[in-house]
């Protein structure tokens, strides 16, 4: 009798010291980068009748560098630059041509190679910045520098600026670009028949919108509109529309994530939900950019149940 009582008492005592364990989340794995070729030759111009051996390396999908790869080569204008299957280029006449390295299974790479008659003429143009992101309505000044074959700067060169898509970005004669609508465009400076490498510019809308959809993996209902954008003070705000509605639950939080209906490792937690229906606003941390996250997630944090998400367009 005493033993049974002790056993029962011990069993009940266990209840009082039961611990909090650990569950593991099967995280969505990021997409692996495709294998790509990278031209490592940095020469931008050669003289007529001179030769240049191009070199390339491959960045494999696992991140390893392979320098022993043998790509295929092509010139965009074989009357200016001739190139052999082994990547040996020859300057044939004045002008510029793109040299392409390519290989099935790899993303190729290209380099703009100029051919000049002598050392002193304009051989290449560099513009800065080489890539930029601006918002619609914002301006950005591009600058160009001209070089001769030896890399010396040539002063007093008048550049002509152009953009690849005037609907997205416009650029004036001084190189001042203006973001007109969301999208990608290229900026090029040219002088004396020589073109720069194009600079990449992304114009982003200052407001992104989306609509909540319920998680198809369960029956929790989430609906309504959402908007992410900057206010007049430059703060990034997440605003739910008055049509927003979600099922209630314990510990429902709002997140910015990079995948739908999923709490990705790079998520940003904006805090507990303010209301299960109606308009509400969350302040996004200053370090977060407008286009850093593509999804807004309504998530039951303690029980790890994603109710639904909205894709920001």
């Amino acid at each position, binding site marked *: *009798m005493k033993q*049974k009582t002790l056993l*029962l008492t011990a*069993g*009940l005592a266990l*209840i*009082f010291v*039961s*611990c*909090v*364990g*650990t*569950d*593991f*989340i*099967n*995280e969505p*794995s990021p997409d692996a980068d495709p294998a790509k070729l990278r031209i490592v030759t940095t020469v931008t111009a050669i003289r007529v009748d001179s030769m240049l051996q191009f070199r390339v390396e491959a960045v494999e999908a696992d991140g390893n560098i392979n320098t022993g790869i043998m790509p295929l080569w092509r010139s965009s204008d074989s009357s200016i630059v001739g190139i052999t299957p082994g990547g040996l280029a020859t300057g044939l006449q004045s002008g510029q041509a793109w040299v392409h390295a390519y290989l099935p299974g790899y993303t190729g790479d290209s380099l703009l190679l100029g051919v000049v008659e002598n050392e002193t003429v304009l051989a290449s143009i560099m513009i800065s910045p080489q890539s930029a992101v601006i918002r619609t309505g914002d301006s950005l000044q591009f600058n160009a520098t001209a070089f001769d074959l030896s890399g010396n700067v040539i002063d007093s060169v008048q550049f002509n600026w152009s953009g690849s898509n005037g609907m997205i970005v416009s650029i004036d004669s001084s190189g001042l670009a203006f973001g007109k609508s969301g999208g990608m465009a290229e900026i090029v400076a040219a002088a004396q028949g020589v073109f720069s490498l194009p600079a990449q510019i992304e114009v982003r809308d200052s407001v992104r919108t989306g609509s909540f959809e319920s998680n198809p*993996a*369960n*029956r*929790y209902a989430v609906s309504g509109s959402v908007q992410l954008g900057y206010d007049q003070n430059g703060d990034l705000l997440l605003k739910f529309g008055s049509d927003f509605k979600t*099922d*209630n*639950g*314990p*510990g*429902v939080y709002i997140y910015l994530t990079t995948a739908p209906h999923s*709490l990705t*490792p790079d998520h940003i937690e904006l805090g*507990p939900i303010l209301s*299960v*229906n109606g308009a509400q606003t969350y302040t996004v941390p200053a370090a977060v950019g407008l286009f850093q996250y593509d999804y807004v997630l309504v998530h*039951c*944090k*303690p*029980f*790890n*149940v994603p109710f639904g998400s909205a894709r920001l367009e």
Partner: protein
Amino acid sequence: MQFNPDKKKFFVIIVLFFLLNAQLSAVGWPQKKGRAWFKLSTQITVADEFYEPGGHKVPITTLGDYTTSLYGEYGITDGLTVFAYIPFFKRITLNRLEGETSGMEFFPGDEVNGFADSDVGLRYRLAGLGATVISGTFLLGLPLGNDNQKNGLYTGDGEMNRMLALEVGHSFHPAAMFATLTLGFNNRVNGYSDEIRYGFELGYSPGARWLLIFRAGGIEPLRNGVDETKGGSGGLFANNQQYLSFGPEINYRITEQVGISLSATSATHAENVVSAVSYGVGVFYSY
């Protein structure tokens, strides 16, 4: 200790001893005047799935619910019994969440300990028809637990519900068997839906010390509450909870007054409740 009770009398005592369940009492037999029955028990539920509002199971952070309670009945008269269910220690744990590949902590885990919502009530013998007894029960749910925990680890629902139930018990004497039925209406407030509660028990005593019970019961919400009610769609005290639970219980009398019981309960046809087998262990005493 030796005892050799008369079979019929013993069976009636068995019924009184064992069939008084705390939460879905499907018992038609009130206590005799001056008689009492107590049970100290622990219910253990560890769940990593949840029946969402559509009735489908979804994975959740592992939740542990350990409720230690005292249930007691006392016969005020031969026909009127007062009873109380007091879960005096409820421990709820919620596991920590860690990314499998990143090692990142998604949720630090949580735990609460405390007093939980309790019940008090009266059972009144309405009629006795041979081997069948009909009783009425009034139960009052006391919101003594905590219904305001940031991660939903509530030990109470914050509302004082009132339940009226009709209980029918039938003995199959001389066979050592009995059956009970319960049908109740649970009126809930503060935005919670009212509920129909039902229960069924079938008991069999294979020997003087043993009693085996198969128990089934459930809740059907009337869905007349408010969606935004605290507890929400996913809490432990969620609104619109629905289930049909079932499982066996084994009781063994160590002495004439003291015994132990073991039980296991599962559920189906469920919404807004965790999905897991719940295990119970207890010791009971009567005089």
